[in-house]
């Protein structure tokens, strides 16, 4: 199903603050994931930056603001800008989130959960079909963290993800930190969750650490990866044919050597468990 996709290894979510260190440690990073919004509608220096990155690393585009779950449909202007970027990079796959980020003229500013309903499955699948009319790069979908549990669910979170993946024929970007965070905050069993996922669709993983605030684990991408997430990653790599793993650090950046050490640990897990 997704077995034809190349195995990329262990990569890093590219952030501009790491640029110099990244090139000094090129051998430690197998590929890069870029946030697509950072390269849409940009000035020439940013465009040149992307070209340089693409000359040195395989690049996986990662979208944040497409709002695949919006019942009002997709933003065509956004797609019009995204399509040339996809054509330029021609990546083996790209990723977005199962969520909505805007409604009724309001840009929420973050990934917001969808209700686990058949209607929401329909909406996401319809929007994905539209995306494919613009470009046909294999799409993998990421599970998000959520603080708000929406009423009216007709299925579990894992069933909801699986239904969307199956019906839209997409792969899964399983964020193991998000899974751990949700399991902690909402009290469910990660192994039960994994057991419900379609095993052949898991393509890529995300990992990083968050912080605690007022008894809630926050997915802030600001801390080293905790032991529980490393253990979960090993479990996931044992079960699923993962093609790539990405460290997604966004805040509170440590010396680059610490990021490299985390990449090495993920590589070790990928080698010993897959």
């Amino acid at each position, binding site marked *: 199903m997704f077995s034809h996709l190349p195995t990329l290894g262990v990569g890093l979510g590219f952030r501009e603050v790491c640029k110099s260190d990244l090139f000094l440690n090129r051998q430690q990073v197998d590929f890069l994931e870029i946030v697509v919004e950072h390269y849409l509608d940009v000035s020439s220096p940013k465009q040149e930056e992307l070209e340089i990155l693409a000359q040195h690393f395989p690049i996986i585009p990662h979208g944040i*603001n497409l709002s695949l779950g919006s019942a009002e449909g997709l933003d065509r202007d956004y797609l019009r*800008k995204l399509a040339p970027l996809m054509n330029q990079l021609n990546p083996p796959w790209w990723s977005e989130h199962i969520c909505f980020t805007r409604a009724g003229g*309001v*840009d*929420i*500013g973050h990934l917001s959960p969808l*209700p686990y309903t058949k209607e929401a499955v329909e909406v996401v699948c319809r929007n994905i079909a539209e995306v494919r009319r613009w470009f046909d790069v294999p799409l993998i979908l990421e599970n998000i963290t959520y603080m*708000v549990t929406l009423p009216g669910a007709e299925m579990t979170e894992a069933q909801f993800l699986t239904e969307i993946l199956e019906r839209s024929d997409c792969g899964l970007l399983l964020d193991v930190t998000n899974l751990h965070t949700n399991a902690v905050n909402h009290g469910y069993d990660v192994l039960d969750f994994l057991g419900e996922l379609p095993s052949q669709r898991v393509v890529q993983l995300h990992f990083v650490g968050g912080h605690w605030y007022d008894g809630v684990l926050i997915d802030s991408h600001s801390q080293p990866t905790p032991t529980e997430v490393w253990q979960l990653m090993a479990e996931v790599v044992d079960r699923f044919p993962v093609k790539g793993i990405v460290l997604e650090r966004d*805040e509170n950046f440590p010396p680059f050597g610490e990021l490299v050490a985390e990449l090495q640990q993920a590589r070790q897990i990928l080698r010993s468990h897959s």
Partner: protein
Amino acid sequence: MSLLQTQQLLARLYTNTEFRERFFANPQTVGAELGLSDDESHQLAQLSVQDVNLFANSLKWKRLGEVRQFLPRTHLALGKNFNALFWKYAESYIPSGIKKHRQDAIAFADFIAKVARDEGIEPPWVGDLVRYEQTWVLAYQASIYLRVCWFRYPVHQPENSDICIEKPTILVWWRFLGRPCLLICKGRLPYK
């Protein structure tokens, strides 16, 4: 209740404090105003107030974190007051689109400059400093840019500690299509 209606209501709950407080104080009345049935309002009232507030606050913290990166010296100069001012500002403006964080930083800089002008905040040169940082943000997003600004303090000095003595200064931002860097020409008015 359709997904479309649900999402529109959730987006307002997440981003509008006044609406959120009104809704949770009386979901049936607010629901009726929005054309929801009693059952639909009742279902939405099952949302946890605590969880929605936590998410709404996390949205503002996320915005604040992004804006801080565009205005680092203003953040340094204002200290904790930077956060307090942002919290006040964020109630009245929600940025949107691909470049929303940049847009947010530009609008917040306008807000700080206005507060500095109208109410006076410490340090006295922060109004100049935020205009200086805002101009860099504006210059970076344009391919061609020309702007001349007058400042009461020498805000182009790299350290905040060097700008606290009045020294009227004119700065010119200049950028041509195809040139990868910004040029800055500095001139000074005679001392008072």
